[in-house]
């Protein structure tokens, strides 16, 4: 076949809207049309897909439009132009589904192993001194917006700090790793928070008057709750959560982002809640062991859950349920605190 295959097209020169009918052919890597010639490197070749107009965008501003897609594809084949790797990939359902399966596997593996390992390694590299100001700032902010000074006397506060310190000291003496630096704050709160305790980066812990009030005859329960918060401090959960939430948000934006940013908030919430639940379990394990080693009975935690239920009814109406929604179920936790730990030491 001596004659090179050619194809009719509309040529828009980039200056006027008038289409000029031309015959296009490919010769020695040059595109010839309407008395023009252009090397292929200066032509954006259209992708082969089932739908859509075949357009060649020419460097310099012009456009070649091929009204008949099927004819274009046949012509492209005849000139020996091979579609690129990604193009062939996009044409095949099989390959696309394999790609999707790989993506799903990567997301799952990243969520299950990659991200926790990454955030752990990253957190290990952040010195405690860098964490301190973060905790201070958050505490200052929470203080301003949510909390008021405690009504407990200084002596009462000091007594709690000493009890807590003693528990940690004896846990440390028995060989357990416990936080070196911690600060325990007492605050009164608004009705929105109620009986609560929380830990912040940099070893800041805070317990509300309402919680102390609820459990003033059950010091072991209070100390176990504080030990739970110390568990968050020891494992630096605040920093870990921050890093993980950021990465999950980015991943969700890639998955759903250009459809709706509202919708992509959903997986972030679910995924970070999953991580948080793991953190709560870790902190519970720490609390149970620290309490036992520190001569405190963690089984008294059952009283705390009982009283919360009495006070707020079932979990739904309790403000606690909102802030603690990522905690494992109460019954599961009661059973955990009552169970014999694997390393219950006998002094």
């Amino acid at each position, binding site marked *: 076949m001596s004659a090179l295959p050619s194809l009719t097209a509309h040529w*828009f020169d*980039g*200056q*006027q*809207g*008038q*289409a000029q009918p031309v015959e296009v052919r490919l010769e020695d890597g040059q595109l010839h049309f309407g008395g023009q010639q252009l090397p292929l490197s200066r032509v954006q070749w*259209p*992708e082969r*897909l*089932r*739908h*859509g*107009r075949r*357009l060649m*965008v020419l460097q310099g*501003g*012009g*456009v070649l*439009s091929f009204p008949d897609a099927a004819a274009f594809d046949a012509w492209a084949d005849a000139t020996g132009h091979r579609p690129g790797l*990604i193009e062939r*990939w*996009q*044409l095949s359902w099989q*390959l*696309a589904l394999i*790609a*999707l399966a790989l*993506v799903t596997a*990567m*997301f799952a593996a990243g969520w299950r192993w990659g991200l926790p390992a990454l955030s752990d390694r990253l957190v290990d590299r952040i010195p405690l001194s860098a964490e301190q*100001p*973060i905790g201070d*700032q*958050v505490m200052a902010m929470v203080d*301003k*917006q*949510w909390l*008021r000074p405690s009504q407990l006397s200084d002596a009462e506060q000091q007594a709690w700090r000493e009890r807590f310190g003693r528990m940690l000291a004896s846990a440390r003496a028995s060989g357990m790793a416990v936080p070196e630096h911690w600060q325990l704050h007492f605050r009164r709160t*608004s*009705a*929105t*928070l109620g009986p609560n305790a929380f830990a912040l980066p940099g070893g800041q812990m805070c317990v509300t008057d309402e919680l102390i009030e609820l459990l003033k005859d059950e010091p072991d329960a209070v100390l176990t709750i504080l030990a739970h918060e110390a568990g968050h401090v020891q494992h630096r959960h605040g*920093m870990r959560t*921050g890093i993980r939430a*950021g990465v999950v*948000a980015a991943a969700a934006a*890639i*998955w*759903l982002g250009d*459809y*709706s940013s*509202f*919708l992509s908030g959903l997986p972030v919430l679910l995924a970070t809640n999953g991580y948080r639940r793991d953190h709560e379990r870790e902190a519970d394990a720490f609390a149970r062991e620290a309490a036992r080693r520190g001569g405190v009975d963690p089984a008294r935690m059952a009283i705390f859950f009982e009283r919360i239920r009495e006070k707020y*009814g*079932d*979990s*739904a*109406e309790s403000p606690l*349920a909102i802030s603690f929604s990522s905690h494992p179920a109460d019954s599961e936790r009661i059973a955990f605190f009552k169970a014999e730990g694997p390393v219950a030491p006998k002094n």
Partner: protein
Amino acid sequence: MHATAAVPTTADPPLPNTEAAARVLQIRFTGSGSEYFRIWAINLLLILLSCGLYLPFAKMRRIRYLYANTLIDGEALAFHGDAWRMFRGFVLLAVLLGASTFAETFSPAAALPAFVLLCAVWPALWRASMQFRLGNTSWRGLRFGFEGSLAGAYLAHLPVYIPAVVLTALVPDGQGPSSDPGVNSQFWFWMTLGMLCLMAPWSTALLKRYQHQGYRIAGERSGILLRTRSVYFIGFKMVVVGLAMAVFATLAAIVLGGLLALVATGKIDAKGNGHYYGLAFIGLLYLFGAGGLLPYYAARIQNLVWGNTRSASLRLHSELRGLTRLNMMNWLLIVLTLGLYRPFAVMAVTRLRLHAVRIDSSTDPATWKTVRAGSHADASGDVAGDFFGMDVGL
């Protein structure tokens, strides 16, 4: 529900139909969900394998597919953008957003300056992205352009920024009508939200006016006759529809919550099963609010804004209906398929929105010619647009 009810009839009389060239430019969208699904799947894999660096190239593939399938009067749009330029803009934007997110998470004190910085450059970035996107789009070989001024971009954002500035400057921490700081921070939160909602229509009007006065193709420069009160009227209708939806969501939540409780515990009793009702209510509120109400607003705004956009020889019309229903269906299907339906949803919404638009032209586009942008006063904007090469959505 007639979408066009809110569109004020135009002030000037219709152009006399004298020229034989006068005709309707129909818009057709031929994109297919299954094809877009495959493009999406492969884009995702390459983005992950390249640790995100493929993002601009993925975006370019996506834009080219959408453009090749958008036929105006039988000719498709073409994209002239250079993926490497888009890459630079992408890196800049990623650093900016990453830094502000990071600051927000780890340092509340640094969060405010980071946010202020983002706010300060945002209008310029917004304008630059429109310049880039339109400047690299052509139809019949004729480039589009965006000619809104930089100062105009900042002015258009004023209603968003003024209340924010006033609130941060005037509200002392923890102060307010109540002695309880927790109540006070909620008070200010609702105050801010309320102010933003009240100003949202004004803000929409300013932004849309700015955008639709800046488009150009060949000798056609777009203009718009948009009354702020028309946007407020849409906002008012949205509140009414929203209330109706809230009532419906409440009723549906009672039914759905009862079903959930029955399935999970075997009892319909609301006592002790309150969280099932709560879950159903939040889910439905989310579906109706973000999935239904926002598209309702978007559809009415599209009809109002495009219906009032014109240039010397072009008049646009938009009769978009059914976006709310389509979008709620999409949300359900996306959630049920864990996101797999997403590409189909994007195609369906794009088709509906584009098919709703009709263009009347009093001249033949074949006679249009590129106008040399010799008298262009603000060349630095073009350079910036070219440099940033990003697109934050039109």
